C-alpha cells in the first residue's frame, strides 16, 4: 500500500517520459499534462484511502512494509506511517496535483520534463515522510533536492540559476553532516548490540555519551533547521521561492519546509532527548527571533513572492517553537500548523502565480485596485490571506493557538514574544493585500485582467475548502496526530531527566509573590509540567551531569 503510494508518482514520471516522446514536443504536451495530473490525483486518492484505513487511535506505525535491503549494515526498506506522517503524506499528495495545475498554462518549455520532475519530487517527498529506516530516509531526503533543483533552475525566473544552486548547496551542506551523524548513530547501535542498525525504532533506544549526543543532535538539527528554515539559516528560501516557478514554490513552501520540522519531531528530538532538551530553549529563541524577524522583513518586501517567502520563515518559526515546547499542545499544534501552512501558503503561492502569469511581474507596486478588476480572484486571495494570518475559523488559528499555548506552558516569555507575530502577520499580509487589491487601478496594464479561469477555480476551491474545513473541524485532523505526538513526547521527555524540571515560566516566577498562586490548578494543563513522583531537579539535562562527572 505505502510503497504503491510512494512509487506511483515515479512510475507516472517514467510513463510521462515515455508518453512525451523524444525532445520537446509541443503536440504531446496536453497528453503529458493530463497523464501527470491523473497520476498525481490517483496518488492523492490512494492517500485518502490510506487515511480512511488508518487507525487514528494508535500511536504505532501502520501499513509497515519491511524488506531487507543492505543486511550487512542493518539497512532495510522499512516504511510506515503514524499519525505525524499520515497527514503530511496526504498533504503532499494534495498539493502535487494543485502544483501541476498551477503550471498548466505557464509552463511551455518541455512540459514532459517538468511533469517528470514534479512527479519525481512527489515520490521523494512521500518517501521522506514514510521512511522509518534512517538510511532510506536520507536517500529520499537528499533526492528531493534534485528534482527541485531542476524545477527552479529550468523553469524559474531571471536569477533562477543562482537560486537553484544556492538552494541545493545550502540545504545539502546542512544535510551531509546529518549523514555522518546517522552513520555514527548506526554504529553506536552496533557497538551496543553487535549489529549496526538504521531502523529508527531500534535507534531510539541507543544511549550515547553526552558529547556525542550533543554533536549528533546538532548535526541533525542543522540539517532540519536549514530546511525549515530557521533564522539565521533562511536566506536560501527567499531566493528559491522568488525564482521558482509557481509549482515549485507551492511544493517548496507547502511540503518541503515541513520536511525540516517533521525531521525535528521525528528524528532530532526523540533520538537525542537530552541534547534536545538542552538545546530546545536556544532553538526556540531562534524560532521566536525568526517569527518576528521574518515578519518584519516580509513587511518591507517589494516582491510578493519574497514577502510570502519571508512569511514562511515567520510561520515556520511558530512550528519550531511548538516543537521546542515539547508538550502535547505545542507539538500537536506544530504538526497541525505544518499542514495549515502547507495549504495556506500553497494557496498564496497559487494566487501570486496567477497574478504573475497575468502580468509577468510580482512587484507589489505594479499592482493596485485589482479588486475592481478581478473580484473573484481577490476574494480567493482574501480568504487565503485570512487563513495565513490565522483568523479563527480558518486553519491557521488552531495551529497557532495550540503552539502558543504549548509554548506558553513551557516558557511564557518566548510565547509572549511569539504572539507578537500575530500582530505582525496581519500587518504584512494586509498591507500587501491592500496595496495589490485596493485603491484605484493605477497601472493601465491591470485594467483588463481576466478573472479566475475554470482551471484556477479547480485549484482555489479545494485549497480554500481545506482552509476552512481545517479551521472549523480541526478535530478530524488533530485526532490521528495525538497518539503519535504523545508517544514522541514521551520518548523525548520520558528519558530525559530534564523533563520534570522544565524551568518555571519566568514571568510567573518573578511576578507572582505567593507561589501557590502560580501553580496551575488541576487538572494540570499538561502532564509534563509536573509529573508526580518525580523529584524536581536542577533543570540541567542529565547528560551534562554525566559529562561533568567523567
Amino acid at each position, binding site marked *: 500500500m505505502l510503497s504503491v503510494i510512494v512509487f506511483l508518482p515515479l512510475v507516472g514520471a517514467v510513463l510521462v517520459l515515455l508518453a512525451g516522446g523524444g525532445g520537446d514536443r509541443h503536440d504531446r504536451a496536453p497528453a503529458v499534462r493530463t497523464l501527470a495530473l491523473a497520476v498525481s490525483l490517483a496518488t492523492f486518492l490512494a492517500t485518502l484511502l490510506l487515511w480512511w484505513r488508518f487507525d487514528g487511535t494508535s500511536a504505532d506505525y501502520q501499513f509497515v512494509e519491511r524488506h531487507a535491503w543492505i543486511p550487512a549494515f542493518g539497512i532495510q526498506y522499512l516504511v510506515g506511517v503514524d499519525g505525524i506522517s499520515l497527514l503530511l503524506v496526504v498533504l503532499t499528495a494534495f498539493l502535487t496535483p494543485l502544483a501541476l495545475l498551477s503550471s498548466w498554462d505557464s509552463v511551455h518549455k518541455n512540459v514532459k520534463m517538468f511533469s517528470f520532475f514534479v512527479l519525481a519530487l512527489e515520490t521523494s517527498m512521500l518517501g521522506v515522510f514514510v521512511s522509518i529506516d534512517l*538510511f532510506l530516509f536520507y536517500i529520499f531526503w537528499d533526492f528531493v533536492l534534485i528534482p527541485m533543483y531542476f524545477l527552479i533552475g529550468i523553469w524559474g525566473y531571471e536569477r533562477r540559476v543562482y537560486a537553484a544552486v544556492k538552494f541545493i548547496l545550502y540545504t545539502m551542506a546542512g544535510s551531509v553532516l546529518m549523514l555522518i551523524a546517522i552513520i555514527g548513530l548506526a554504529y553506536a547501535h552496533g557497538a551496543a548490540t553487535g549489529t549496526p542498525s538504521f531502523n529508527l525504532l531500534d535507534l531510539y533506544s541507543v544511549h550515547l555519551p553526552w558529547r556525542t549526543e550533543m554533536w549528533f543532535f546538532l548535526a541533525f538539527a542543522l540539517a532540519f533547521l536549514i530546511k525549515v528554515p530557521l533564522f539565521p539559516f533562511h536566506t536560501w528560501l527567499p531566493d528559491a521561492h522568488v525564482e521558482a516557478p509557481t509549482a515549485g514554490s507551492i511544493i517548496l513552501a507547502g511540503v518541503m519546509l515541513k520536511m525540516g520540522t517533521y525531521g525535528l519531531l521525528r528524528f532530532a528530538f526523540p533520538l537525542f532527548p537530552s541534547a534536545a532538551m538542552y538545546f530546545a530553549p536556544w532553538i526556540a529563541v531562534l524560532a521566536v527571533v525568526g517569527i518576528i524577524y521574518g515578519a518584519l522583513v516580509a513587511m518591507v518586501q517589494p516582491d510578493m513572492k519574497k514577502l510570502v517567502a519571508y512569511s514562511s520563515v515567520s510561520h515556520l518559526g511558530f512550528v519550531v517553537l511548538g516543537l521546542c515546547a515539547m508538550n502535547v499542545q505545542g507539538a500537536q499544534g506544530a504538526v497541525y500548523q505544518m499542514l495549515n501552512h502547507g495549504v495556506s501558503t500553497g494557496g498564496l503561492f497559487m494566487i501570486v502565480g496567477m497574478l504573475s502569469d497575468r502580468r509577468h511581474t510580482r512587484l507589489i507596486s505594479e499592482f493596485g485596485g485589482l479588486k475592481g478588476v478581478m473580484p473573484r480572484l481577490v476574494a480567493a486571495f482574501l480568504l487565503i490571506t485570512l487563513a495565513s494570518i490565522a483568523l479563527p475559523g480558518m486553519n491557521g488559528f488552531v495551529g497557532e493557538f495550540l503552539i502558543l499555548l504549548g509554548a506558553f506552558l513551557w516558557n511564557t516569555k518566548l510565547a509572549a514574544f511569539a504572539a507578537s507575530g500575530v500582530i505582525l502577520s496581519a500587518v504584512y499580509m494586509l498591507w500587501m493585500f491592500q496595496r495589490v487589491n485596493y485603491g484605484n487601478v493605477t497601472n493601465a496594464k491591470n485594467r483588463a485582467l481576466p478573472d479566475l479561469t475554470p482551471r484556477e477555480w479547480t485549484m482555489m476551491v479545494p485549497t480554500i475548502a481545506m482552509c476552512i474545513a481545517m479551521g472549523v473541524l480541526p478535530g478530524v485532523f488533530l485526532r490521528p496526530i495525538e497518539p503519535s505526538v504523545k508517544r514522541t513526547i514521551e520518548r523525548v521527555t520520558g528519558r530525559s531527566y530534564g523533563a520534570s524540571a522544565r524551568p518555571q515560566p519566568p514571568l510567573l516566577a518573578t511576578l507572582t509573590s505567593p507561589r501557590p498562586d502560580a501553580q496551575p490548578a488541576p487538572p494540570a494543563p499538561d502532564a509534563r509540567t509536573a509529573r508526580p513522583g518525580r523529584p524536581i531537579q536542577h533543570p540541567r539535562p542529565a547528560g551534562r551531569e554525566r559529562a561533568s562527572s567523567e
Partner: protein
Amino acid sequence: MTEYAGLIPLLILALTAIAAMLAEAFREPGERMPIAGLGLIGLTGAAVASVALWNSDAHSMGVIRSDNFALFINLVLCIIGILTMLMSGDVVERERIPAGEYYALTLFALCGMMMMAAATDLLVVFLALEILSLAVYVLTGIRRRSAAGAEAAFKYFLLGAFSSAFFLYGIAFAFALSGSTRIEQIGEALSRQGAAEPSMLALLAVGLLAVGFAFKVSAVPFHMWTPDAYEGAPTIVTAFMSTAVKAAAFAAFARVFLSPLEPLKAQWIPMLSVIAALTMILGTVVGVVQTNVKRMLAYSSIAHAGYLLIGIVSANTTGKAAILFYLLAYAVTNMGALGIVALLGTEAKPHDELRDFAGLWRSRPGLAGLMTIFLLSLGGLPPTAGFIGKWYIFSAAVQEGHYWLAVIGVLTSVISVFFYLRIVVMMYMTEGSDAVRPRVAATAVAGLALAVIAVLYLGVLPTRALDLALDSISTIF
C-alpha cells in the same frame, strides 16, 4: 595448473594485446579492423576467468595472488576496459589515433594493473607500475599532432619517473629492513620488530612507498600532474586512466599498507589522514573555478582520491570493502561522464570547455540526461552509485572515529556538487551554442547505457556489490 591459474587473466590480456598489435601489423592501410572487438573478447575472457577463480585464492609463481581482492579489482578493470573499448571506436577514428597501438597499450596497461593489484612482491608491484605507467604515458601522448598531448605525456612521464624513483627507494629501504621484497616477509619483519619503536628504515620505507602510491592515485601534494595530463590526453584516455590507474594503484596501496605495513598503522595513519584531507580540500576547491570540463573532472578525480584515502586511513573491514565498492562506483561513473565528453568532441574541436555544454539538453537530451546522472553520482547524491560509495567510505571513517575526515569529506562533496552543477547549469539552463554535435555510435551508446545502468543499480540495489566487496577483503590484513 594451479601454479599458474592466477595468471590466466593476465595472460589473456597480454595475449590479446599482442594480438591487437599483430592485427595492426597485418592491417592493410585504410582497412577498418574491429580491434576493439578483439579487446572486448579478451576483456570478457579475463573477466570470466576472474569469476571462475573466485574464492580459489590462487597463488602463482610466488608473487601473484589472485585472491578475491585482486579478482574484484580485475573485474573493475575489465568493466573499465570494456567501457573504454565500447566508446573508443569513433574517437580513435576521429582523432586518427593509431588503433592497433592504442588498443594494445590499453590492454597492456590493464594487464599491468591487474598484475599490480595481485602482486605480493614489491618488485613486481614496481614492474607492474612501470608497465601500466609507461603504457599510460604513451596513451596520453598518443595524438602525435597534439602539442598539448605531448606536453601532458611528458609532464606525466617526468613526474612519474621522478616519483617511481622515490617509490623504488622505498622498496630499497623495505628490502634493507627485511632482506626481501615479498610483502609477507616485510610484514613478518615488521611485526618481529614490534610496532612500539619502529626503526628508521621502516619509517623511511613507509614514507617513500606512500609517496609512490600517492603519486599514482594523485593525492595532494603529488597530484600536480593530474589536471595537465587529464586535460592534454585524449578524453577517452583520460576516462581510462582516471579510473583504471586509480583502481590499480589503490588496490596495491591497500594491499601494501593494510597488510605488511599494518603494524605501522599508528605511524602512517596521521600522515595519510592529512594527505587525504588536503586532497579532498584542494581537489574540490580548485575544481570550483575550472572552465574546462576535463580539467574540472581531473580535480574532481583528485578529490575522489581523497575520499578513497579515507578508506585506507580507516584501515578497517568497512574501509577496505568501501575502497573496492567506491572504485567500482567511481569507475562506472567517471567512465560515463568522461565518455560523454569524449563522444561530444569533433575532429575540429574537442568540445571540452564548459561553454560547449550549453544547451546540450536541447540538442542531445539523452546525453544530457545521462551526463546529469553521472554528475550526480560524482557529487554523491542519491540514488546513485556515488552516494552509496561515499556513504560507505564515510561509514568506515565514522566507525574508526575519524569524524573530522568524514566532515571534511561531506563538506567538500558539497562544494564539489557546485562544480558538477555548473555543467548541469550549462546543459539545462543556458541557451545553447550551435556547436556541431557528432553522431554517437551504437557501441558507445551501449557503453553509456551499461555505465548508467551500473550507476543506478549500484545506487539503488547495492547489496550484492557490497557483499561482494566485503567478501573480497578477507585476505588482506
